[in-house]
C-alpha cells in the first residue's frame, strides 16, 4: 500500500517536475527569442549607422519652426532695394512703407534690425554689420565680385561659416546670410505668423477686443460689406494658411471615409447572406463568395488604391472607392459570421405568422444583427478616417495630400504641425461621434 502510494507520489512528483521545468524553460526561452530577434533587427535595420544618418539639425529646425516663424529682411545687392517678408514668401511680404516694429528703415537701402538676445544687424547698401553682445561687430561687405568678412580678432567661431561665395552667421537671436546677390537677415519670433489675417488685410495686427468692437461697429472698414463678413472672409481666404482649402481637405477626408464605409456595408450585406451557412444551402456558392471576400481583403488597400487611381485619377472618389472595395471584404466576412450566429427561434416565430422569405429576413434577422453590424460599421468609420488620410497621401486627395506637400517642401513645418493637430482632432472627433452613435443606436433598440 505504502509502496504504491509512494509510486503515485513519485509519478506525480515527476510530472510536476517536468511541468515546472517546461515552464521555467519557456520563461527563459521567450525573452531569449525576443532578444535574439531584436538583435537581428538591430543589425538588419542598420541601427548603428542610423546615428550617422540622423540629421539632428533637421530635428532642431523642425521643432523651432513648428512654434516660431522668421521674418526675412533682404537687401538686393545687384539692383538695390530692401524687402521684408514673413518666411520669405511673396504672400507674406510687407507692402511698401509698412515695417514690423523691429525694423527701422532710414532709406531704401538701409535698415536697422533689432534681433533677440541683444543682437542686432544693420544693412547699409552692400554692407552688413551683425552685432553680438559678447563677441563684437561682424562686418560683411560685398565689393564687386568679392565678399569681405571682418570679425573681431581671434579665431573664427564655428557659428560663422565663410567661403568666397557665401557668409553664413548663425547667432543666438537671428541669422544672416550674405552672397554676392543679396544680404539677408532672419529674425525669429514666437508663434504662427499671419494665422488669422495676412498683411494686406485691414484687420492685420488688431487685438481680439478691437476686432470685436469693429465687428459690432457700424462704420465699415470696407464700404461694400459689413465688418463681420469682411473679417470672416479675410480669415477664410487667408493665403498664407489657406483655411478654406484645409477645411475642405478635412471634409473631403471624412467624406471618403463615410462613402467608403457605408458603401462597403451596403455592398457586403447581401453578399454576407449568400455566404452565411444558415441562409444558403449551396456550399459551392458559399465557398466562392467567401473566396471573393478573402481575395478582396488580401489584395489590400494599397493595391486597390493604385489600381483605382489609374482609372479614376486623383481625388476623393478614388479614395472612397478604395476603402469601399477593401472593406466590403472585411465586412462580408464579419457580417456572415454574425449572421451565422443568429437565433433561429425568432425567424421561426415570424415564419409561423405566414411571412414570406423577404419578410422573414426583415423582421426575423435584421433586428437581431443590426446592433452587431452597426457597431462594426461605426468602428470602421472611425478607423477609415485614418486610412483616408493615408490613402489621400497616395492618390492625392484630402488632408493627406496637403500634409505630404507641406512635408516635401521641408520648410513649412508650422503648417505641418497645424495639419497634424487638425488630423488628430479629426480622428478624435470621429472616434467620439462613432462612440456616441454606437451607444445611442445599440442601447436604443437598434431600429434604423
Amino acid at each position: 500500500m505504502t509502496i504504491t502510494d509512494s509510486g503515485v507520489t513519485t509519478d506525480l512528483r515527476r510530472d510536476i517536475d517536468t511541468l515546472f521545468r517546461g515552464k521555467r524553460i519557456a520563461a527563459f526561452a521567450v525573452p531569449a527569442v525576443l532578444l535574439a530577434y531584436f538583435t537581428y533587427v538591430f543589425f538588419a535595420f542598420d541601427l548603428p549607422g542610423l546615428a550617422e544618418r540622423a540629421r539632428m539639425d533637421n530635428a532642431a529646425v523642425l521643432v523651432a519652426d513648428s512654434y516660431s516663424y522668421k521674418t526675412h529682411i533682404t537687401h538686393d545687392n545687384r539692383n538695390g532695394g530692401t524687402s521684408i517678408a514673413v518666411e520669405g514668401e511673396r504672400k507674406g511680404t510687407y507692402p511698401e512703407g509698412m515695417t514690423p516694429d523691429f525694423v527701422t528703415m532710414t532709406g531704401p537701402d538701409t535698415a536697422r534690425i533689432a534681433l533677440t538676445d541683444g543682437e542686432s544687424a544693420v544693412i547699409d547698401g552692400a554692407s552688413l554689420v551683425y552685432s553680438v553682445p559678447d563677441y563684437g561687430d561682424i562686418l560683411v561687405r560685398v565689393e564687386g565680385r568679392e565678399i569681405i568678412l571682418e570679425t573681431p580678432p581671434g579665431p573664427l567661431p564655428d557659428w560663422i561659416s565663410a567661403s568666397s561665395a557665401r557668409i553664413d552667421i548663425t547667432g543666438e537671436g537671428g541669422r544672416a546670410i550674405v552672397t554676392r546677390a543679396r544680404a539677408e537677415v532672419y529674425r525669429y519670433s514666437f508663434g504662427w505668423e499671419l494665422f488669422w489675417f495676412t498683411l494686406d488685410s485691414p484687420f492685420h495686427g488688431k487685438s481680439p477686443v478691437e476686432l470685436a468692437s469693429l465687428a459690432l461697429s457700424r462704420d465699415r472698414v470696407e464700404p461694400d460689406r459689413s465688418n463681420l463678413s469682411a473679417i470672416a472672409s479675410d480669415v477664410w481666404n487667408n493665403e498664407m494658411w489657406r483655411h478654406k482649402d484645409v477645411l475642405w481637405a478635412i471634409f473631403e477626408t471624412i467624406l471618403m471615409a463615410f462613402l467608403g464605409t457605408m458603401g462597403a456595408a451596403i455592398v457586403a450585406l447581401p453578399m454576407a447572406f449568400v455566404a452565411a451557412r444558415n441562409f444558403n444551402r449551396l456550399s459551392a456558392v458559399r465557398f466562392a463568395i467567401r473566396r471573393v471576400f478573402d481575395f478582396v481583403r488580401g489584395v489590400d488597400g494599397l493595391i486597390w488604391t493604385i489600381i483605382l487611381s489609374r482609372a479614376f485619377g486623383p481625388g476623393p472618389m478614388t479614395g472612397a472607392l478604395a476603402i469601399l472595395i477593401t472593406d466590403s471584404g472585411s465586412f462580408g466576412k464579419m457580417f456572415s459570421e454574425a449572421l451565422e450566429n443568429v437565433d433561429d427561434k425568432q425567424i421561426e416565430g415570424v415564419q409561423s405568422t405566414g411571412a414570406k422569405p423577404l419578410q422573414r429576413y426583415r423582421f426575423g434577422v435584421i433586428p437581431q444583427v443590426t446592433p452587431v453590424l452597426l457597431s462594426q460599421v461605426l468602428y470602421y468609420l472611425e478607423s477609415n478616417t485614418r486610412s483616408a488620410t493615408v490613402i489621400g497621401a497616395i492618390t492625392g486627395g484630402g488632408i493627406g495630400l496637403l500634409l505630404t506637400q507641406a512635408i516635401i517642401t521641408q520648410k513649412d513645418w508650422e503648417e505641418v504641425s497645424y495639419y497634424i493637430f487638425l488630423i488628430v482632432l479629426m480622428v478624435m472627433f470621429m472616434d467620439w461621434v462613432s462612440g456616441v452613435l454606437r451607444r445611442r443606436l445599440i442601447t436604443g433598440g437598434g431600429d434604423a
Partner: protein
Amino acid sequence: MADLSLGSAHGDTDTIRDAYLAMARTKRMYGGILLIVFVALMTSGFMLADSRNAGGFWDGILNIFQFPGEVVAEAREKAALLPGLMIEFLPSLIETLNIAAAATLLGAILAVILSLLATRGLAKFPALISPVRRAMDVMRAVPEIVIALVLIFILGGGPVPAMIAIAIHTVGALGKLFSEVNENASLKPVEGLASVGATWTQRMWLGVIPQVAPNYLSYALLRFEINIRASAILGFVGSGGIGYDLKNAFSWGQGRYDEVAAIFLLLFLTIVFFDQLSDHYRNKLVGRG
C-alpha cells in the same frame, strides 16, 4: 354583465391596437426619415466626391480593368520571369515583415505596461490613469504616415522611421484593447499576491499577465496582420520595404509591369498567409472553433 365586460375588453384591445399602430407608424416614419436622410447623404456625397475627382466616376468605371489588364497581359507574356522576380523581391518583403514584426513587438510590450497603468484597480498610480489614457488616445489618433514622414526628414529613409511610426500607433491601439481585457481580469490572484507582500511588478507579472496572456496574444496577432499592410503602404509613401519597390516598378511604367505583377503577387500571398495564420491561432487562443 357578460356583455358589458366583453364590450369593455373590446374597447381595451381597441385602444391597445390603436396605440400599437400609432407607435408602429411613428417608428416607421422615423425609420423612413432616417433612410431618406442617409440616401440623400450618400448620393450628395457621391456627387460631390465625383465632382472633386480628377477623373469622373462614369469615365473611370469603363476603363477600370484597363490597368490590371495591362499588368496581367504583360505578366503572362513574361510568365517565366515571374518566379525569378519574386525571389529578387524577397529581401524587401522580409524587410516589410520585419518592420511589422518589430513594431508589433515593441508596441505590444509598451502597450502591456501602459494598459496596466491605465486600468482601474490595477494601476500603480491611480492619478495617472486618465493622462495615460489620453496619451494612448492621441497615439491611436495619429495616422502612421504622419509620424513616418516627419521621422524620414530627421532620420533619413530606411525601415526605422516606418517601424517607429507603426509602433507608436500600435501602442495606442493595443493599449486600449489590452486595458479592456485587464478590466475583466479577476483581482483575486492580485490580492493574494499582495497579501504575501509582492511588489506591483510581481503582482502584475504573476497575477494578471497569466490570466490575460491569451487575449493579449490574440489581439497582437490581429495587429500584426494589420501592421503588415501598414508597413507595405508606408514603404510606398516613403521608406524601405516592398512598398518602395512597388512604387519604383510602378513609376517605370509599361515594360516593367512584370515587376509590378510579381510584387502584387508576393504581397497578396503574404497577406493571405498571415491573415489565415492569425485567424487560425486567434480562434485557438480564445477557444473558438
